[in-house]
């Protein structure tokens, strides 16, 4: 895989910046650093990095706000480092436009893997012409809306199709329950949002080879779901 042109690390701790830099040396050519949220935003606007690693514990501003500002000026993936093990925080970060999060203390290998996955997703994303794809033996054709496993067509309800399509289109990004709900039900009133989990379970029974050990639609506990997209 080609190396990324540039990655920006926003963290106030010099030691963590160098640890992250070490971890990502194999992944990126150029690694920029910023110690505050304001500086990070300036660098992001000036240099258009291909990916941002953002620490939430910045001295000058709330991490969620920096994340939202970054998302406004930049389309590149944002990976957040957080010291808190709070699902609520993860949800608010994803809703604020973050693509992934890593909880401190993290494994450098895991961080590097996540960075790679996000870069791959960003590069292959082609919103103009959705093309057929295969995930763990399941072929999905977004145009004909046809889903097959082992050459046999699987019949999905409209809601199940919408959920699968939404998750697959996100290219492996975790979507929060709210994001999935908004995409599938388009903010219709009176829709039973709480049954999203039931629809996911029914969808898995149709598309997974072992529904009790799902590999295509992955649960991110307390946060949402993602599709394990392998291209």
């Amino acid at each position: 895989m080609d190396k990324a042109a540039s990655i920006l690390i926003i963290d106030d701790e010099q030691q963590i910046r160098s640890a992250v830099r070490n971890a990502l040396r194999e992944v990126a050519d150029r690694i920029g650093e910023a110690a505050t949220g304001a500086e990070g935003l300036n660098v992001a606007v000036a240099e258009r990095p291909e990916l941002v690693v953002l620490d939430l514990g910045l001295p000058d501003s709330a991490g969620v706000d920096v994340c939202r500002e970054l998302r406004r000026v930049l389309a590149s993936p944002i990976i957040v480092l957080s010291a808190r093990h709070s699902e609520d925080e993860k949800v608010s970060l994803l809703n604020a436009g973050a693509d992934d999060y890593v909880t401190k203390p993290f494994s450098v290998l895991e961080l590097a893997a996540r960075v790679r996955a996000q870069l791959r997703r960003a590069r292959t994303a082609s919103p103009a012409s959705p093309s057929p794809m295969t995930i763990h033996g399941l072929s999905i054709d977004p145009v004909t809306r046809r889903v097959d496993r082992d050459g046999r067509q699987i019949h999905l309800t409209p809601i199940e199709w919408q959920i699968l399509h939404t998750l697959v289109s996100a290219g492996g990004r975790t979507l929060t329950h709210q994001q999935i709900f908004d995409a599938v039900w388009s903010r219709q009133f009176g829709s039973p949002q709480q049954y999203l989990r039931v629809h996911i379970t029914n969808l898995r029974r149709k598309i997974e080879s072992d529904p009790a050990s799902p590999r295509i639609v992955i649960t991110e506990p307390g946060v949402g779901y993602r599709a394990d997209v392998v291209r």
Partner: protein
Amino acid sequence: MPTSSADVTTTLSTNPARPSLGSRLASRFGPLALARLYRSRPVLGWVVWLAILAAATVAMYSVQSRIDQAHVVLLYLLIVLGASASGGRALGFTLAFVSFLLIDYFFQQPYYDFFNDKPLDLFVLVTFLTTAIVSTQLLAHAQAQAREARTRAIEVTSLSRLASETLNAGRAEDALVKMVDVIQSTLGVTSCAIWPWMPDRGFGECITRGGIEPKRREPDSLVHRAAERGEPLTLSVDGALGNERTAPGTRELFLPLGAKSGVVGVLVLSDEKPIVFDPPKQRFLAALTYYAALGVERARLVREAEHAAALREADRMKDNLLASVSHDLRTPLTTIKALAQTEALRGDTAAAAIEEQADRLTRLVADLLDLSRMKGDAFHAAPDINTAEDLIGAAQRQAQGLLGDGRTIRTVVDLESPALVGRFDFTHALRIVGNLLENALRYTPPGGSVELGVRRDGDALVFTVADRGPGIPGAESDRIFQPFYRHADTAPDVGRAGLGLSIARRLAEIQQGSLTYEPRPGGGSVFVLKLPAVDIEEAEEQAAAS
């Protein structure tokens, strides 16, 4: 109508039997103004009225030849009316009878003799006596009614004053002090006190008209007894105990204050003289105790609300502290781990040891945070509609890293029936099942398997994690859920504080579930997690219908 508390005190004080209306009539009807004097000295009244009767008799006797019998009768009737108006029924009756004799003796022929043979004279005498007695009786009745009405009016005034004092006082405790003041002055007793009481916490600080007494004094045993039994108690002048509020000779009265939530306190009234309780006063006392109970209840509710607010604030501060401690400890650990791991990947074994220890420290920090959360009741659940399969899938996925040496997890899920749905907190439930799987795998020999299953049983989703490990001896099977429990064979430095199962049980309980242990038939352990189940078809139909 008197409204000041001084007037209220005088009229309702210990002996209200003497008519105050009498004094008012007396002052209104000219020469009888003296009546005021003997209001409190009834003997004087008798003397004065008998003197008036004698004087009138002498006066009429001296002009006997020039007056008619009718004049005599009318004057006597006037005197009887005046006497009964100011001196009461007994004086009225006495004067009527004496007048009857005087008329017969001095003013009817034959004079100086009680014998009478003229039917007309007899008729006059009988008519006089009847008229005098009936009018005395009517007057006394009217006076009693007037007195009653007056007492009622005073009661209403006092109660409305009590109510307004209660509402106007700023703090709930100040309201109680005012209330005690009003009760004491209204009933005219020498002391009045309220002891707030709660069945589980006992007595609070005593409230008197002087304010709230600091908690130095303990209430005596009678106050305890009144509160615990919820019945009034009386202590008479001669030291006898009773249960009737109206017991004669009562010197001290202990009244339980009953509100919605049961007995909330005791009202203690005491006086040097016996406290007299006529029916109106009893009625009044009942209303007073009701108000006092409301006052005590209000004070308690206000205190509880303040306490709850303080607890919330403490909780918030604790959460903040936990968050910042967690952040402050994790940030250096992140650096250590990241740098050590980078070096370890290059083959440095010392760095690998550092990384391992950093991981261990991270787990200990997590355990400590959990412990302080558990102690401070800081675990909160956000139950939602979730499916059992989703939880099992996530738990299995999480446990992948723990599988080694051919160990496997076997799931037992019925995929043919509709999905099992429950109302629970997904992350808490996942933590519980994850913890159970981790334990089970630890005691599973290489190549063995752990069984993770779920079924519906009545109102519950029943998750089971079963292993073929050594199992847990019966004596220890409940202790394993206690914090810091460690199996006797476990080395002291396995790197965890032994909180896993106690936290798991706590997490189950805060979402109306349970976590129990049972031995597995054929050897091993089964941990059973029950969580509330939901009937999804019904719920879906309802949602669709709305």
